[in-house]
């Protein structure tokens, strides 16, 4: 395999990988504040793309994206408040089944609001033919947008968790909800906030990647599965590890087309997930206790 082909795979893998990472981070945020695996995570990317595409016809792109992000964030909040918040101590399994059901409902609602046609947001800069030269490979400038937006979100999130009071409160809540409550932290509001953040982040990533991979009403499911793979690979609950995991999964998936038929590309992430679950459920960076 030539060096530029390798580079091509790397760049393509890093691009999709960063999207997977964002989904994985979304899983981690909600998991660490509630212990729930929110299967609807993938739908947030879809909603971000769909809403922004619809709005982009009547307003500047930046405004469309901003509104889409906020609306999707609110959808996340709505889901949490309407379907999750009032359950008392639900079993883990019940919750994941509920979120799967919710993801189906969001999907189907989206199918009826828009339709099954594929849509794409306009390129944020340039158009579909522009390309930049990076280290000998040619890539679309949108790739830089995706990477940039993802990096920005991860950076902002890290700062938020480490240096703001609310962020630290969320970490406390994730670590020990009862103790947090005893310290006067309002855990229920933080849970709602975590859903907002996860949904909004997903939406922004969905908008960034829409020009490249298009947006379709049913893209959420496979994104959710791959995002979960990243979350587990990095260690469930470990936000920063999900980034590395996402990039790894993306690159492996991209590289796989050199050995597997293209149709099996999706199987790569699934196989990684099964391998991690079977052999090292705490992920590459997690501790045994966390996976119990």
């Amino acid at each position, binding site marked *: 395999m030539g060096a530029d082909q390798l580079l091509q795979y790397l760049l393509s893998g890093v691009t999709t990988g960063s999207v997977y990472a964002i989904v994985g981070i979304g899983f981690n945020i909600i998991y660490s504040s509630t212990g729930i695996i929110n299967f609807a995570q993938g739908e947030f990317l879809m909603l971000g793309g769909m809403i922004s595409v619809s709005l982009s016809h009547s307003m500047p792109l930046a405004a469309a994206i901003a509104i889409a992000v906020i609306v999707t964030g609110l959808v996340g909040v709505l889901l949490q408040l309407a379907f999750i918040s009032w359950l008392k101590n639900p*079993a883990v*399994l019940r*919750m994941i089944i509920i979120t799967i*059901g919710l993801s*189906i409902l969001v999907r189907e609602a989206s199918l009826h609001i828009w339709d099954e046609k594929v849509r794409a947001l306009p390129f944020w800069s340039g158009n579909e033919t522009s390309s930049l030269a990076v280290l000998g490979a040619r890539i679309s400038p949108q790739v830089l947008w995706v990477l940039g937006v993802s990096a920005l979100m991860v950076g902002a999130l890290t700062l938020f968790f480490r240096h703001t009071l609310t962020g630290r409160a969320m970490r406390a809540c994730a670590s020990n909800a009862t103790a947090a409550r005893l310290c006067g932290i309002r855990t229920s509001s933080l849970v709602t906030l975590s859903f907002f953040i996860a949904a909004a982040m997903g939406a922004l990533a969905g908008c960034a990647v829409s020009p490249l991979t298009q947006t379709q009403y049913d893209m959420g499911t496979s994104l959710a*599965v791959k995002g979960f793979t990243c979350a587990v690979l990095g260690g469930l609950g470990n936000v920063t590890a999900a980034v590395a995991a996402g990039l790894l999964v993306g690159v492996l998936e991209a590289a796989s087309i050199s050995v597997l038929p293209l*149709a*099996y590309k999706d199987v790569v992430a699934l196989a990684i997930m099964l391998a991690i*679950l079977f052999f090292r459920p705490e992920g590459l960076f997690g501790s045994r206790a966390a996976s119990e």
Partner: protein
Amino acid sequence: MKRYAPVLLLAAVVVAVQLLLGAVKSEFLLTQLTMSAYYTLVALGLCLLMGYAGQVSLGHAGFFAIGGYTTAVLSTAAAAAFSFAPWLSLPAAVAATAVVAFVIGVPVLRLRGHYLAMATLAFGFIVSRVILGTALFGQADGISDVPGIRLFAGLVLTGKRNLRVQNYYIAWTLVTVGLLFAVNLIGSRVGRALRAIHGNEEAAAAMGIDVGRYKLAVFVLSAVYAGVGGACLVHFNAGIGPGEAGVMKSVRYVALVAAGGMGSPGGTVAVSAVLTFLSLRGAFGLYDDAVFGALLVGIMLFAPDGLFGLVPALRGRR
């Protein structure tokens, strides 16, 4: 024995429905009723797994597809290349399903909670993608022109109009027998062991129950139910498509079992028969998937015990 009431009731209803439809000249409905039977078999097997062994499978459509595609390939491509008695493709399909279930069951059943759920989901996805990507399985077009199979005593497993009544009874007899087996199993030492595992795995082990082996056995059994359903439906429909392995189908089966009450095979059969039939008739129109999604969410939120029974695993404990 009052535990056999559901079995007898089912047999009675099956016969009554056929006679009624014959009387009102609506025998065309038998086709969808027959199809419902085969989908109900999957739900029935899943009921044993979820309701009694307390495990979950979000990929059971995968086993349905394995059963179906195996017999489809053997009856078309393989039959053209080799010669063997056509009816052999049915046990081959069931065997293939059992083997796959055994092989993936060993590692998968060591997982718990959402890891188990996601692993089974991944399994279903993998089956689905492999089917879509492989020429032998017809990729997106599936396999068609699958011939019927001549069974014993002049019975033929096929979708031909003139043999409709016969096939309706073949299908529902399979379901009735499946229900009979389920009821028997539940009332036996094995059934108690499964319920013990569901109640408290550690205590069950201390009583001498080999938890791992039992879980695997029920997993394989539930997969076999699905494989039988898939294999038979293929010959009835004369074909199969990749949608049968999809996540939406798997979720549908879970919804049916949840609604029927995971501890109630009779309830599962009833709910599954009715809802699947309505779905096949197009009663839910464009909202088909949404209906099952809503059913699942609704049941899980408000009645995790299902409409008919009990399900401790979904109550508030980890």
